[in-house]
Every structure is written in C-alpha cells, then in structure tokens.
C-alpha cells in the first residue's frame, strides 16, 4: 500500500481536536474493519496521530466490563465480544475444528520456542511429524515460515502469526501461559545437539 496519503487525512482529524472525537473515530474504524488494525493502519486512515496507543488504551478501558471489549493482539486492535457471554453466542456458531494432539503439541512448541525448525520440533516430541500436521497449522494461518537457520542444511524455521495471538487471546507471546516459569526452568533453552541426535536415531517413515 502506498504511503503518500497523509495530506488530506489531517483535515479530518487535525491536531488539537478533542480527544473525544478521536475516540469516536477509532471506535468507528475498528468497528467497521474486517481485520484487526495496527497503529500504522489506523494512521493510514486517520492521518498521523500523536499518542494513538494511549487513546486506544483509554478506549479499551471505556469498554472494559461491557459486552464488547477492545483488545490488542500482537500490536493489532479489534473489538470482540466479552468472553463470559460466549454461551449466549455460541449456539449458532460453528464448532471450531478439533486439532489433533500432534498439531496442538506442535503449535505449542512453535509458540514457546519460535523460531524453530522441524527437526527441533521432532526432537522435543521424540517423534517424526507428518507433513499434514504442519499444514493444518499453516492453513489456519497460526504458523508461518520464518526464514532459515544459518546452520548445516539451512533448515526452514517456523514461527507464529498475529492471527495465532488473536485466536488465542494473547496480547503478545509474553502472555503464553507459564512462559516465564518455563524460561526460568531452562525448558525453553535452545535444543542441544545431543537431543537432536537422539531424535534422529528414531526411525522415520515420514521423509
């Protein structure tokens, strides 16, 4: 998207306009948006905004406790219904797809260790992963390829996406359940070679 759009947007929300007006504009924009919006995307529509993050937090505070909440997920903001009202809304919503145990574990490993290679995932799980497992996660757009590791074989790395954070209600990876404790216990340390070795000794029908 081109960036040279800023001139005329200033006229809409010039500096010094009442904060209330800005909150109204943010409300409308986030309400109508099809995707969660980053600060940059908001500014593309409203023009440069000083103190935008603070305004968003203020707006989120106004909605706290209401039936609709404003939340930040991976730097992007969106409205969603309050979690405690799920039972009212769920009945007509389709059931979310059930993930296989392998997919859930693989997703957790990627989320807690990212970026991580397939070999490392297999080392942690002690079993080869089938192609389908990663495909499911890629298709759900929760996981993305994230470059290659500069090591022998240059393995492809995987990491999570903003959609992953949004789906699981995480503002950032720091919100992953128990991540600080695991880090402190050394359980998120890089997978060492000995461990990889052990994993590679297992048979493979997958590759």
């Amino acid at each position, binding site marked *: 998207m081109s960036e040279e759009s800023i001139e005329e947007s200033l006229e809409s929300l010039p500096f010094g306009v009442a904060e209330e007006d800005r909150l109204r504009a943010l409300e409308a924009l986030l309400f109508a948006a099809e995707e969660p919006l980053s600060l940059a995307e908001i500014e593309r529509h409203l023009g440069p905004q000083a103190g935008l993050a603070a305004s968003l937090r203020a707006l989120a505070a106004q909605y706290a406790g209401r039936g609709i909440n404003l939340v930040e997920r991976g730097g992007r903001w969106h409205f969603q*219904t309050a979690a405690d009202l799920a039972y009212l809304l769920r009945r007509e919503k389709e059931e979310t797809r059930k993930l296989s145990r392998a997919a859930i574990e693989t997703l957790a490993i990627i989320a807690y260790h990212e970026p991580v290679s397939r070999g490392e995932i297999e080392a942690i799980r002690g079993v080869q992963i089938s192609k389908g497992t990663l495909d499911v996660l890629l298709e759900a757009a929760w996981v993305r390829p994230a470059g290659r590791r500069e090591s022998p074989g240059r393995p492809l790395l995987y990491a999570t996406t903003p959609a992953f954070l949004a789906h699981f209600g995480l503002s950032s990876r720091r919100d992953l359940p128990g991540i600080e404790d695991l880090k402190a216990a050394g359980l998120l340390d890089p997978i060492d070679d000995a461990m990889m070795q052990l994993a590679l000794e297992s048979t493979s029908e997958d590759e």
Partner: protein
Amino acid sequence: MLFEPTSETGEAERLVIDVGGWEGPLDLLLTLARGQKVDLREISILELVDQYLNFIRDAKQLRLELAADYLVMAAWLAYLKSGLLLPRPADIDPDPEELALRLQLRLQRLDAMREGGARLMARDRLGRDVFLRASPEGIRTFRKAAWDASLFDLIAAYGHIRARAEPPVHLVRIRHVMPLDEAIERVGRLVGVQIDWAEIASFLPTEADPAYRRSALASSFVAALELARTGKVELAQDGAFAPLMLRKAQAHV
C-alpha cells in the same frame, strides 16, 4: 483409549498406538513417568527404565508389533541403566548421570509443551468463546488515479502521430540555373557585338539572385572555353585569379 490416534502413526506402530495411544517412545516414557506420581524433576530414572523395559517385554509377549524406534529407545535405556548401575571409570564419556539428566529434561520439556498446548486450547478462543463482528462493512481506500498529462503532452503526441503517419517526402527544389547551351548561345552573341577585351563578368545577366549569377558565371566560363576551342573567342588572363578577359576572335594576320 488414552488419546486419539493421530495421522502420524505409521503402519508398523499402528497396533501400539491403538493399544496405548502413545506417540513414540518419548511419549510412552512420559506416560510411565507420570505414573510415578512425583514431580518430573524427582523422577527415578532407574525405575522409569525398568518400567519401559517391562512394557516392551510385555508387548512382545502379547505379540504386539513395536515400531523400531521403541526398540531403539529400549536398547538405549538398557545401556543407560547398565551405565548407572555398574562401576565405571571416572572419565567415561558420555557420563551416564548426565545422560539420565538429559532424558529427564527431555521429559520435562515435552511435558511442558503438552501442558502449554492444553492451556492454549483452553483459552477464550476467537470464534469459539469470543466473537468478532459477523459481517463488518470493511474500511476501504479507493485509489482514484489523478492522471498526469499536460496540454503539451497531448499536442506533442498528436504531432508525433502525424509525423509518424505521413512518410517523409524528399522534395528537391527546382533551382534557377543557366544551362550550358544557353550560356554558349548568350556568350557567343554578346562577344559578337563586343570589339575589345571585356571581363567575363560583363557578360552575365543582371539578375539579383546570387545563386543564379553563380550558376551563370560557371556556365559562361565553360561556354567561353568551348567558344575559344572552336576559335570563336580569344581568352586572356594576366595572372592567377585575375579577371578573365575575352573578345571576339581576331582575324589572324
């Protein structure tokens, strides 16, 4: 059945998975370790090894076909056990205690990831527990092209088309010249009425067009040469670039 079978089960381990629902030997080890009902950090590796080896033995007695990696793990654990139990030189590498610790860490890590996955799945998930608007209007930016073209661009383009469309015609202008025949006739006629020497310039027409005068001079000069050759005129010149003089050929005495 403890867990759903997954797509990862190869044909060889199918029976094992179907019986126990384990995904590989590490998964089996973790399940056995959990059975000790202590924190994974407190686990007895020797006891775990025995449990695993017993499981494999039982499975074999039941004629369950075990995937090769279960057997590889069994062999590795048997080696680990002997290393842990038997007296050994101090500098043996790798140190069995360290190997045991590593195994323990692996189990902890797998357990942590399993736990993390479960906790992720239990969160308030979008589309299951919390909902977005079903059909947001969307925010749109319409790009309207403001075409940049000036009047000069326009007329220059048209000129260009026309220039391209009309193939260039090379016209050679008809120049006003005095042909040689005319010069011979004219010089012959004028010399006839001339008694004395006269400059060639005096035979030229008085027209103003310098191009024509130049042409006439050239033609008249050639005419004078021709008339001299045929004995009708005489030529004289005092030196190089001096005026060329001519007169009617005199009767030779």
